């Protein structure tokens, strides 16, 4: 694990900062002089997880690169809400071209910087649609060539920009505008999904990690780690979307936490295709606790709860727990027996 353990201090390990921590023990976000890569005045919804995730990741990358960073953004919510003419929220060198080409554009930027002899690091970023669907070919190409780009997927599990439609990252049973709550199998189908972190690992790139906006120290450590390496790297950040998930705006971080703590979203990192560490579940919860807070799953908890569907989702979480060894006997504070 790249994350530096913090000697016990109240909330030192989990909160953004703390007055008593040394600077290097604090997150970048606790720094009053952080970049604010994406600044105030953006037009994201209240409680937007993506705006948060982007600032978390990019501010950390800005620190890791001493500000020598260029970012390429795919089309999507993040792009639309951040740069409506005549205002941009970005405070960093930022380029947007298209929905499906951010990895390739990032490759081009990296190549140009190399040619120009500039030690400027490059991040490509997209939502899940721009990553796992329309940008997948370009991303796979970038991985395969081992271009010197960190690609970040801000995964909110659907096409939220266009009104909440299904993407290949939409979880089973979730309601979207194209997987409506109608018919014998309401919500999204149970498929294999497109597990991009594992697909990235199959490309044998130097670094693949997952993170959530609920664990800032973990997220920043992963950005740091990623920026310490060269070649193609991939960071997949879960960013809850109050609009698309039908959740309270205040619940964004909480839901990200529950996604991880339920096992539905495994948090881990891998180098050259091998998982090198996992962030263990601290207080395991049943998937219901996560699902119930989101209207996209409301149909599972109607008068007749869909216990079979919930059980399948729990099985997915359990499978993740088993695959990544997410439950450490010493840390697990499971209420699953209850």
């Amino acid at each position: 694990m790249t994350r530096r353990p913090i000697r016990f201090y109240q909330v030192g390990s989990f909160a953004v900062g703390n007055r008593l921590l040394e600077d290097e023990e604090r997150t970048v976000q606790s720094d009053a002089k952080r970049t604010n890569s994406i600044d105030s005045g953006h037009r994201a919804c209240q409680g937007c997880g993506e705006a948060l995730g982007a600032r978390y990741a990019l501010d950390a990358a800005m620190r890791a690169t001493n500000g020598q960073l260029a970012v390429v953004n795919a089309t999507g919510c993040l792009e639309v809400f951040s740069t409506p003419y005549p205002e941009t929220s970005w405070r960093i060198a930022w380029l947007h071209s298209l929905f499906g080409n951010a990895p390739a554009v990032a490759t081009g930027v990296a190549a140009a910087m190399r040619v120009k002899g500039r030690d400027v690091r490059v991040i490509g970023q997209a939502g899940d649609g721009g990553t796992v669907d329309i940008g997948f070919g370009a991303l796979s190409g970038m991985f395969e060539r081992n271009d010197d780009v960190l690609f970040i997927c801000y995964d909110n599990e659907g096409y939220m920009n266009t009104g909440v439609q299904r993407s290949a990252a939409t979880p089973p049973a979730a309601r979207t505008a194209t997987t409506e709550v109608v018919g014998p199998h309401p919500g999204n189908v149970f498929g294999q999904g497109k597990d991009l972190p594992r697909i990235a690992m199959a490309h044998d790139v130097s670094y693949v990690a997952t993170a959530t906006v609920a664990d800032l120290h973990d997220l920043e450590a992963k950005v740091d780690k990623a920026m310490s390496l060269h070649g193609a790297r991939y960071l997949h950040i879960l960013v809850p979307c109050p609009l698309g998930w039908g959740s309270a705006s205040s619940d964004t971080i909480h839901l990200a936490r529950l996604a991880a703590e339920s096992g539905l979203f495994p948090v881990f990192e891998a180098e050259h295709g091998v998982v090198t560490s996992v962030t263990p579940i601290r207080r395991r919860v049943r998937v219901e606790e996560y699902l119930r807070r989101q209207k996209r799953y409301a149909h599972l908890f109607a008068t007749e709860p869909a216990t079979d569907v919930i059980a399948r989702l729990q099985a997915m979480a359990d499978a993740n727990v088993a695959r990544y060894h997410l439950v450490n006997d010493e840390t697990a504070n499971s209420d699953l027996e209850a």
Partner: protein
Amino acid sequence: MDTPFAITLPVGTSRANHTGSWRVERPVYVDRLPPCNNACPAGENIQGWLYAAESGDYESAWRTLIEDNPLPAIMGRVCFHPCETTCNRVRVDEAVGINAVERFLGDTAIAHGWSLPGPGADTGTHVLVVGSGPAGLSATYHLRRLGHRVTLVDGAAQLGGMMRYGIPAYRLPRAVLDAEIARIIDLGVEVKLNHRVDDVEAERVEGHFDAVFLAVGAQIGRRVSVPAGDSSRIIDAVNFLHAVADDDPPLLGRRVVVYGGGDTAFDAARTAKRLGATDAVIVYRRNREKMPASAEEFEQALGEGVTMRWLSTVSSFEGDRLMVEKMALNADGFPEPTGEFEELDADALLLALGQDTDLSLLEGHPEVTIDHGVVQVAPSMMTGLAGVFAGGDATPADRTATVAVGHGKRAARGIDDYLNGRKTILPPKHDLAAFENLNTWYYADAPRTRRPELEKVRRQGTFDEVIQGLTEENALFEARRCMSCGNCFECDNCFGVCPDNAVVKLENNRYEFNYDFCKGCAICVAECPCGAIQMVPEKI
């Protein structure tokens, strides 16, 4: 740079877009009342001094503490710490060891010779404080800080009241007691010992006192009639402890029975053990759940070999034969006689059935209301007699040293108001920082530091202090277990989690909202570990 129209934009320009207009509710920073502070009879700002201690600045911590309570080394030993009972951390793992940190601060202050803040500017008024127990000492301290002259009188030979004469030295070493008392006296207090006040009004007039604070305590052991033979030794536990404190312990024999279930009963039993009793049996008429003694005392006493005889009353004591009757709790939880009797061997019977107050000094003042043996007081602690205030065990409240300290502070403020012709208005309390206000996810898992206990063997025959203090490392750790309920402790979460960067981090490590951009998502509220942010509706 030559940038094309509209397609390329200069950075950070979105700050012109004031998204705060989207908001229907706004977050505001609040200070909620932590349950520890709320529960502290002395009104200590516990969260406040733990906050200072967390940084290792023990002097600041101590100075915050003594704003309310000048006796932290004593309280750190004898307080029954209701703060810990209500501590929100109980629901996470275990309560913060507030009492232990308090003692650490008190001891550290003594070790470093830190003095109390000097007296306030002389007001020219003079207050008589009767009784030098915790209430009297507390009042003296606070009155001096307010600039009032104080004459402190006590009927005993030494200052300290029940702290000296009721609490055994193994719980409260005399050096600690003396040090904290001396610090108060050093503020400039006229002390009269062995001075019993028989008539408060006469004393006031004679001494030209502008006000009086009565902190006479409850020093009279409550008696019951136990049929007993002439040779049977029946002693009030209060007197017994007083005598021990005067280094003149009575002979009790080897088998001692203590009658009662309060802390005094346990103090007496444990003291008897230390004086050489082989058997120390506590006879109590109800059961464990109903017993008022503190859990700590109970556990420690059992650890030292004190035994219990539950649901029993003493019915007679003849020679060395003590007869007890078995009791049974009725439906209301009250003990009722069963008619079954047992005999115990006993060389002495110590009665610890409660204490009464000697209020004879108030006789002749019908305006003073005395009810159930205690004097009734207003919120300012003033009795019915103008200028005469009362507190501590002599007034209706739990009879603990901490309550007394709190009374002393309140009375000092009441006296100050009185002397300045002000009406006493108690400050409004903040909303309680309930557990539900917290986001305890953020607190690192950390079990409470155990206070080391002396080996049980060593306790048997000595009055060495049973509970040892915390090392600095442990004290710091313990302080840092505080969740700072309801009060910002500068964790930067709000600053970090705002998707709109609408939280400004100020130079002093505090924060303010930039309502130009706050959209009112309330993530800061949800993710504030300590519940120090609240959403309030925007005025429409």
